[in-house]
């Protein structure tokens, strides 16, 4: 059989992410996958050198359109670490709540894209229908739908009052029910299983050596979740990492499905324990020092390396996003799969190329 080169991306209906793969295909078997990224390098890291460090949280939020809140949160945490700012506990709880909401909406978005990738349009629509409810809660509490803009250095910009908390908790019950409806399909449907089970297998050792993070790592059986480091309110709310041992696309999907429910529980616990008090402290002066801050995004661990030198601009702002760490694993499992499996494998690492390139 002659070899065909099938271009995949940067514009492709199944993969709305600007990554390009040249798939060398032999009778629908992929023998080689040559990646190229870098179509949308925006140089946001360089922008830190010209922007005020307090205003920069808006830029940090715009690194990614989906996990934007956790980017802003991580940035604020990094600055607060450098400057030793005592953040009020209520603000930490609110950050936790919003972080988990953004995790739910990101996972639902991913589940939808995954369903679409395997030609399951109906499931895609239902995933996004549920996601819309989450987005409405987010909009009501922060004012934005995907870019929350509610985190600032020293705390948060908005409070959630007790009445709103009550309605959110009621909505959460409804969302949880909807989630059960769709995750049941993802986990049990035979045709979904036929497309996911045994595809793109990554062993525990391989996943660790290739530096995978997040659900990709946990799907291969490594229990690592940055939330157990105890940032924000996670020192009071314990997080047990969700793991699966199969290491295939199904395992990664199952990890995300389970994490949805864990996030719902975390939000409930956070609302139960949330203390009264201030939501922000005033920040004065300029940061001096350096820190590496890690938090858990929906896609995995994100690493912020900040270096400040006492001016109002940062000297170095470096972000290592989860997709960046997961790309080698994707390239590792692509050769040998079927052409029809390519979207599954590419999607199970939940690629977010725009945040990868910053």
């Amino acid at each position: 059989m002659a070899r065909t080169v099938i271009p995949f991306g940067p514009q492709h209906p199944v993969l709305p992410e600007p990554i390009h793969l040249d798939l060398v295909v032999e009778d629908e078997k992929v023998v080689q996958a040559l990646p190229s990224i870098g179509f949308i390098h925006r140089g946001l890291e360089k922008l830190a050198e010209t922007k005020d460090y307090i205003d920069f949280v808006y830029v940090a939020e715009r690194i990614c359109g989906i996990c934007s809140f956790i980017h802003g949160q991580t940035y604020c945490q990094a600055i607060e670490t450098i400057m030793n700012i005592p953040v009020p506990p209520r603000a930490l709880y609110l950050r936790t709540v919003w972080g988990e909401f953004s995790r739910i909406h990101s996972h639902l978005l991913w589940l939808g894209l995954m369903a679409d990738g395997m030609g399951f349009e109906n499931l895609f629509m239902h995933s996004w229908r549920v996601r819309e409810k989450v987005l409405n809660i987010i909009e009501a509490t922060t004012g934005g739908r995907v870019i929350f803009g509610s985190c600032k250095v020293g705390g948060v910009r908005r409070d959630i009052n007790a009445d709103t908390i009550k309605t959110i908790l009621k909505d959460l019950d409804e969302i949880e029910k909807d989630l059960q409806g769709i995750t049941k399909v993802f986990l049990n449907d035979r045709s979904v299983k036929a497309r996911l089970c045994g595809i793109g297998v990554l062993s525990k050792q391989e996943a660790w050596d290739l530096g995978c993070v997040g659900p990709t790592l946990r799907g291969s059986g490594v229990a690592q979740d940055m939330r157990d480091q105890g940032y924000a309110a996670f020192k009071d709310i314990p997080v047990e990492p969700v793991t699966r041992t199969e290491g295939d696309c199904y395992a990664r999907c199952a990890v995300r499905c389970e994490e949805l429910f864990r996030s719902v529980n975390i939000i409930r616990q956070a609302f139960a324990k949330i203390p009264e008090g201030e939501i922000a402290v005033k920040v004065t002066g300029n940061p001096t020092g350096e820190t590496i801050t890690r938090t858990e995004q929906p896609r995995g661990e994100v690493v912020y390396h900040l270096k400040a030198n006492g001016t109002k601009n940062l000297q170095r702002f470096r972000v290592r996003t989860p997709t960046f760490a997961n790309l080698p694993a994707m390239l590792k499992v692509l050769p040998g799969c079927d052409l029809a499996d390519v979207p599954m494998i590419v999607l199970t690492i939940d690629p977010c190329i725009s945040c990868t390139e910053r």
Partner: protein
Amino acid sequence: MGYFEMSKLALKWALTKPPTTRYPFEPRQPIAGSRGQIVFTKDNCVYCTVCAKKCPTGALVVNRAEKKWVIDRLRCINCGYCAEICPKKSLTMVEGHGSPAVTRDREFH
């Protein structure tokens, strides 16, 4: 059997009223608490330029000498930062969103 979970969901929804709105015909109800858009009240503005300095995207330009307040709506990210820091409260966030723009026009006030 794993085949019927989805059939149940599909048939249930085929008989339920869709939760979508017929958008251009039925306007979307703004969600309470949404940041909305920025509105400028000329009366009490002293043209202090604080908003222009603090705007993260540089969407605002204020000219103190000519008493001009200018906003580039396509640059504005509706963060509400200017409304928060405005000393005279002449900037406020109101519900809803403006109409989509085709050209990059700046609003002069």
